């Protein structure tokens, strides 16, 4: 007989039943306490996990700042981190279309099968918002739940930048617990990290662009200085050389004819130098944005006519036909008349210069459907390859060809002209084809033009 059976001897069935009931009760009570403790511990762990979520989210999101991804791809990566950490069903980043417009567009989303392409308009935009089972479906809950197509959403909006972040769940409970006011830190934390990293990425991108532009500008400046030295030295050498010859005692006496020729060459080189220096000053002023424009209404018929008449001499020398199509006497343009004449002179002069004998240069003026004033200078000259057009726009970058060698210029005419047109708010575009000629098109905004066949504006 073992100890257990010995212990049972003499024990009444009633006592055994009571003892069993006692142990059962104790077992269940202790089990219940264990269950509750286990659940409390799990709950504490889950809450601690959620508390760590914000720190983890911020840490992971900030790491993106050191990666090579661009600002466009940042949204998806941030949302991945938000979804991973918040365990939500869907998430989206939005941008307000215009500051204060209350119209939002989804820029990035996760979990949305079909992303809403049309903007969402909201009657009021809260900085922070969430929905629960008790939330009434009225603005802004109506619009916000509609964006993610989910009943439970958490939203944060940054009024300064117009960015917004939202996450959403299908069910209120289970793994994802109901959203609450305490989640403001989480959602606003996620949004602010996005905005910070985005700003940094955008700044990096702008910095890279600026550095690239600066490098290009540096190269251009070096080339400009090299060319400038050359352009200045050539006429100066001629002036000094000829002056030395004329003043030298060792030189046999010059004939009056030769002296006159040398003096004419010195004067020509001097004028070229003056033109060059004027052009450089113009170009420098334009490049630095220091060009002073004094707009006044000019009658295009007169302005173009005067420029044509002034260039007829050069055109005649080169046997190039120069003409203008009839211009509506009512066409007026609000421009600096001196600068406008400079524009026309440059373009017409260039066109004549690059047109072989027997060619034609035509100036046309018309009004676009939008009221803009369009002036074109068309020649039947040597033309340019598409890749040479950009070169022609650069300072001192004359294209090598037989005609340019015959008629040297400063190489600043086109860049100055373009700068002058743009200083008036207009644009300059070139169409050209080798052997077919070149058309330079100027377009001035409608605000600067007066309609044809109507009264010329006063002033």
């Amino acid at each position: 007989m073992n100890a257990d059976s010995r212990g049972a001897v003499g024990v009444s069935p009633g006592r055994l039943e009571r003892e069993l009931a006692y142990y059962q009760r104790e077992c269940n009570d202790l089990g219940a306490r264990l269950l509750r403790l286990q659940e409390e511990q799990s709950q504490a762990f889950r809450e601690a996990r959620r508390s760590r979520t914000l720190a983890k989210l911020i840490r992971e999101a900030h790491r993106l700042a050191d990666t090579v991804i661009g600002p466009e791809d940042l949204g998806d990566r941030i949302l991945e981190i938000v979804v991973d950490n918040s365990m939500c069903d869907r998430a989206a980043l939005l941008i307000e279309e215009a500051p204060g417009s209350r119209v939002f567009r989804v820029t990035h989303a996760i979990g949305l099968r079909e992303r809403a392409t049309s903007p969402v308009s909201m009657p009021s935009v809260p900085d922070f918002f969430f929905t629960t089972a008790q939330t009434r479906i009225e603005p802004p809950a109506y619009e916000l739940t509609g964006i993610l197509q989910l009943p439970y959403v958490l939203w944060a909006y940054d009024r300064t930048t117009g960015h917004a972040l939202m996450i959403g769940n299908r069910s209120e409970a289970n793994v994802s617990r109901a959203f609450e006011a305490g989640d403001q830190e989480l959602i606003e934390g996620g949004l602010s990290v996005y905005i910070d990293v985005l700003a940094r990425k955008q700044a990096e991108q702008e910095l890279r662009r600026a550095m690239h532009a600066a490098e290009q500008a540096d190269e251009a400046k070096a080339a400009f200085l090299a060319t400038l030295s050359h352009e200045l030295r050539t006429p100066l050498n001629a002036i000094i050389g000829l002056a030395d010859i004329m003043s030298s005692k060792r030189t046999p006496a010059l004939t009056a004819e030769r002296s006159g020729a040398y003096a004419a060459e010195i004067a020509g080189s001097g004028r070229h130098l003056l033109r060059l220096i004027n052009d450089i000053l113009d170009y420098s002023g334009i490049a630095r944005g220091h060009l002073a424009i004094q707009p006044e209404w000019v009658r295009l018929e007169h302005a173009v006519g005067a420029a044509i008449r002034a260039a007829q001499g050069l055109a005649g020398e080169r046997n190039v036909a120069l003409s203008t199509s009839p211009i509506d006497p009512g066409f007026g343009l609000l421009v600096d008349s001196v600068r406008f004449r400079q524009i026309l002179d440059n373009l017409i002069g260039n066109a004549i210069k690059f047109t072989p004998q027997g060619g034609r240069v035509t100036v046309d003026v018309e009004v676009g459907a939008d009221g803009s004033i369009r002036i074109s200078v068309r020649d039947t000259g040597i033309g340019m390859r598409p890749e040479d057009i950009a070169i022609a726009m650069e300072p001192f970058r004359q294209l090598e060809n037989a005609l340019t060698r015959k008629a040297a210029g400063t190489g600043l005419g086109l860049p100055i002209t373009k700068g002058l047109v743009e200083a008036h708010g207009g644009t300059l575009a070139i169409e050209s084809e080798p052997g077919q000629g070149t058309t330079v098109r100027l377009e001035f905004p409608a605000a600067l033009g007066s309609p044809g066949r109507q009264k010329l504006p006063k002033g």
Partner: protein
Amino acid sequence: MVAIGHGRSVSAATAIEQCRGAVGDVVPRLLLVFCGGKHDGAEIIKALRAAFGDDVQIVGGSAAGVIWRDGLGYSGLEVGLVAFEEGDFMPEVVVNRDLLQGEQAAGFALGRELRETAVEDSVVLMFYDSVANQSPLRLHPASDLVAGLQSGLAGHRIRLIGGGTLTDMNLSDAWVFDGRSVAKHAVIALVFPPGLKDETVILHGCRPVSTFMEITRIEGAEVFELDGRPALSVIEQMLGVTLGNTSSQDLSLIATLGEKQGDPYAAYDENSYVNRLILRANRSTGSITLFERDFHLGTRVQIMSRDNALMLDSVRNGISRINQAQSGGQPLLAIYIDCAGRASARSGAAVEEARLVADGLSSSIPFLGFYSGVEIAPFEGYSRPLDWTGLLTVLSAR
């Protein structure tokens, strides 16, 4: 020869490209793919075809999360895959798409087919979509599916191992890849050749916290009474709380019902229990709905508490057993089918138990896991659906 790939991205194409990169030079004939539920399954198929060619068979399905050798995630954006190259261990794929018409009948038809396809004792991996309907939530009961399958097999023995897929941890939806496309209400069986065997451990983590109680009223998966009292009252009394309507689903995070196999009065052994998660509490009827409907009138159950410390111990012990068993063998692949409830986001465990599995398993074994709704494993000689378990299977040459 198999290779494992994994990736994570909002873009299906990017995630699959990451998988492709990890797989290397392997030219797969079959892909076993598990994919986070935030991805569109059709987009994943498209990306897989672009990366691996049009002829590759694609099986697997959605996953509440994916577990790989050096990481895991349940954001819904993860993708993991096993690439099977042409070779001696290429499984044959058998599909049944009739779960919606009845799980038992579909199981029976599949069992009949497996009887013809699978050699006796061969390993069969089976996957199906757990969620039959989203609103109201209804699961495809694995117990009916497996019971039907066993009937169809008619005594033909196979090593059935598997899991139910989910799109996320909230049981929102589920789908499978059926070889060619995305499918609902379908079950996929991978029948491995007889030259392959499995070593499977079931990792637990629940222990009883009540005396035995008898189910005195039950209809399908809905338990109305325990020991003649409303089942919900019994549970609430144990928890010391009254569950509101909105938190009724929370029960699945707290307690399960367990049926002890064998001698009911034998000392506690985690391997003796079949656990059933509680899908929801029904206030109006005072009942609780279980994940499965294989408990019956008169079944003696105990209320079980999840025990995170026990869960982690169970993992350590199971991994130790399986590593010992693999010593000197030729392991081909390890698959971990892990109940979504065990992830720390749900269980509240301080350590991800799946991390312990990946870290503890011999590093030479290609490894992939996913978070599932239900696990199916050989249990006391008969494959049964299990809840709140982790199922680690290592396939190796016999």
